[in-house]
């Protein structure tokens, strides 16, 4: 593989896979109105 292809591959993986890992961490760690799983609700009765 050429140097530029390796750099492109590394950058792509860093952005896309890094974005995935970062968003999973954010979903788990960041406090919010509904951080983490919501309560099991089964069938929602209105």
């Amino acid at each position, binding site marked *: *593989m*050429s140097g*530029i*292809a*390796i750099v*492109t*591959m590394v*950058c*792509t*993986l860093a*952005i*896309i*896979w890094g*974005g*995935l890992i970062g*968003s*999973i961490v*954010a*979903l788990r760690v*960041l*406090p*919010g*109105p*509904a*951080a*983490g*799983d*919501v*309560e*099991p*609700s*089964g*069938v*929602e*009765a*209105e």
Partner: protein
Amino acid sequence: MTQTTPKKGHTREAWSGQTAFLISAIGSAIGLGNIWRFPGVAYSNGGGAFLIPYVVALLLIGLPILLLDYAIGHSLRGSAPWALRRLARGGEYLGWFQVGVCFVILTYYAVVLAWAGRYALYSITEAWGADPQTFFVTDFLQVTETTAAFSLTPVAAVAIPLAIVWFVVVLITARGLTRGIELANRIFLPLLVVLFSAMVIRALFLPGALDGLNAFFTPQWSALGDPHVWLAAVAQIFYSLSVAFGIMLTYSSYLAPKSNLTGTGLVAGFANSSFEILAGIGVFSALGFMAYGQGVAVSDLEGLTGPILSFVTFPQIISMMPGGPLFGVLFFSSLTLAGVTSLLSLLQVVSGGLQDKFAFSPKKAALVMGVPATVISLIVFGTQSGLNALDVVDSFINNLGVVGSAIALTILAAVSGPRLEGLRQHLNSVSSIKIPKVWVLLVGVVAPVALSLMMGSAIIDYVRGGYGGFPTDYLAVFGWGSVGAALTFAVVVTLLPWRNDRPERVSRVAAEADRQLRGEKR
């Protein structure tokens, strides 16, 4: 509005939790296009350089529209017809059009699953022999030079696995959201990741794999000056994420009121793209091996996208490599699993719409939708002319139906009062990651402009040059006709009276969401 006949006691289903929703949303987004479309599109649109417009399109168009779907479905808590009916006057027409588009797509999507399932078995004996192309077209699909443009002659090798696919997916849908779709995604998605990862790892260790990766990732910077490359990136992201034609809207409507919408949206969006990159690595490693075996450059290879990549090129690769049958089973099983989880989400759009409007149970909705879908699927796509019909319907319903739906949705959300800002506030009220105000501009202006350019370009091509060399009357029936059928379906079903009393029995949660959208204080 038509008179309704209230039917008491109808309840809506819900995901068992946020994780179940996330897995199902990722399962929906990861489909056939991730495996057979993205690698070839990226390679032919600048290689590594394509990844720049791809990431830009993901961040500026894909994720914003995904969050629009989430916001509408979650705040208005209903399937596309129900939610859009409450979003804007006349919105129900668009909702049923989205249902119609999904119905058209699922009738041919199931056929590709049948092919993939059949090929997983063929892989064991490498049944395609020395000429996979002739085997696929002539032996398997039974298309010959004398085959009519439309034939009712069934092809048993396709029709039997197709009937099995329909039986399985209708059964899953009939079991309802949690016991059917959610359970299937909890099993199929991890299995897909394991099988596909195993295939990619095997491909990486083949001779010539690095040449394939070199071809895939080497940037052709000049491509960035070509507007078609940017439109190709928008199209790839748009089709890949399955946004703006009812799927994500419907799925998010089953989320509990307190759910982290932006967090799950980002995970789903990046998971989908991560799988695409993985597919690019796996597919081009295998193509590099093929080029190495034939003593040619990767750039000399043909058949790098779509059904030809999967059912002609890959069988060639499988025949060339040691341990080919196992590789083939991994590849075609992955294709089948990726397709099943996406097909289930298409089915849920139709089922959810029927349940909401006509107060059907999941079982009844599955039957009302599944029986005609199976019949149409078998008659139109399970025959000797099925390949032709699939090619034309897929092109027209995606380029006109899906993109048209997205344009209408973004415009509807933008012009119906202060809706986009209200939806942004809804997203931020339940999510940990806040959405900035620029989201309104991206969804209300950037996305519809980019999508209109895509659709305009497609319409010009269809009108000027037709499609694929097919006769005009054939395109009128299967191309323009498939879009017309979805439109007609939308008008007819919208005019039918509501059998569900939800419009008169708005839940506390929906009422609160509605107040937020209208900018009213408590």
